[in-house]
């Protein structure tokens, strides 16, 4: 009744038997269109679980190549992938996991020039990038196009996750109106990260993405999840829409995309 193949019925059987998903939900997943920005620490687990779940169309944007220092946490990439484009390495792994998924890869840096084109074919954006300029661009493009932004970020042993859904809650600028100026946050070189931390936050992003496609449960809209791996504490802060928000407020001052200056060079960001 849902035009599933025999193989799909078996592959997705553990979803289909869940009353919250069923054949109807699995069909929604197969019709889902998700763009992952970043195929690194956060993007790796998100991409694996979204592909395994049968999300029908997945796009991945990343301009980096696989570096040895990535392998401690970026589980899409293996030792044999060193020097390959992360998009190629990701595509190979995800195709092997689930041939149902249409995978589109974009080996480019996100900028104000290409972001609208990149977003065009997708409904949900999973932000797994590693820098403030891209995070603000993703936010602003999501607000301007009405697309949902599934946010995750990590620092050493701490992670944050939330969902920004235009029209139904705050955006990233309601939370943090402007990016920090260079020098006000620790530089990329200073920051290490526990390898499994992005695994945890990236899978939270995958969970939220699946719930958004399925329309089930209660998403992180309006809530900021804070995770501290050292004390193993999850906390939650209330997020509110800011009527003075520069992009989604009542009198927005930002009407077009802004390319902020990069804070640390690309080489340093790779080492992050």
């Amino acid at each position, binding site marked *: 009744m849902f035009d599933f193949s025999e193989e799909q019925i078996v592959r997705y059987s553990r979803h289909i038997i869940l009353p919250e998903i069923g054949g109807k939900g699995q069909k929604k997943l197969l019709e889902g269109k998700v763009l992952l920005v*970043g195929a*690194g*620490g*956060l*993007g790796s687990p998100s991409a694996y679980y979204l592909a395994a779940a049968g999300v029908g169309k997945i796009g991945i944007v990343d301009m*980096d190549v696989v570096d040895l220092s*990535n392998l401690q946490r*970026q589980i899409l990439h293996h030792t044999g992938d060193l020097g390959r484009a992360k998009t190629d390495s990701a595509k190979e792994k995800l195709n092997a996991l689930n041939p149902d998924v249409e995978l589109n890869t974009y080996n480019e840096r996100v900028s104000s020039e290409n972001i609208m084109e990149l977003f065009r074919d997708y409904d949900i954006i999973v*932000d*797994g*990038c*590693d*820098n*403030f300029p891209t*995070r603000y661009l993703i936010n602003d493009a999501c607000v301007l196009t009405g697309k949902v932004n599934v946010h*995750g*970020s*990590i*620092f*050493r*042993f*701490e992670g*944050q996750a939330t969902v920004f859904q235009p029209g139904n809650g705050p955006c990233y600028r309601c*939370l*943090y*109106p*402007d*990016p*920090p100026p260079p020098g*006000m*946050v*620790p530089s990329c070189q200073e*920051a290490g*990260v526990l390898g499994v931390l*992005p695994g945890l936050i990236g899978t939270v992003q995958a969970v939220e993405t699946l719930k958004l496609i399925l329309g089930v449960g209660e998403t992180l809209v309006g809530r*900021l999840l*804070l995770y*501290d791996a*050292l*004390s193993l504490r999850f*906390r*939650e*802060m*209330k*997020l*509110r829409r*800011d009527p003075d928000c520069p992009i989604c407020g009542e009198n927005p001052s930002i009407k077009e995309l802004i390319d902020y200056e990069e804070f640390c060079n690309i080489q340093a*960001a*790779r080492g*992050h």
Partner: protein
Amino acid sequence: MSVQVRIPTPLQKLTQNQSQVAAEGSDIVSLFDELEKQFPGIKERIFDEAGSLRRFVNIYINDEDIRFLDGDKTALKDGDEVSIVPAIAGGI
């Protein structure tokens, strides 16, 4: 009022690596004046020269953002948990 303050990783250098510190204050302004005495340098990381909260840091009392309460004049109660939550960018 005696409150617990949660210190985020980027500021723990200033608090001798403590992720939680106890401090006194009747409101956010007096709390941070007190914290500045204990941990010199912490205030300027959170407030600008004009005394406004920096735009990439938020302060929560329990789970409420002070910007949606009375800002830095928000009164504190004994046992409140104050969290400093900066924007973090990392993802790869």
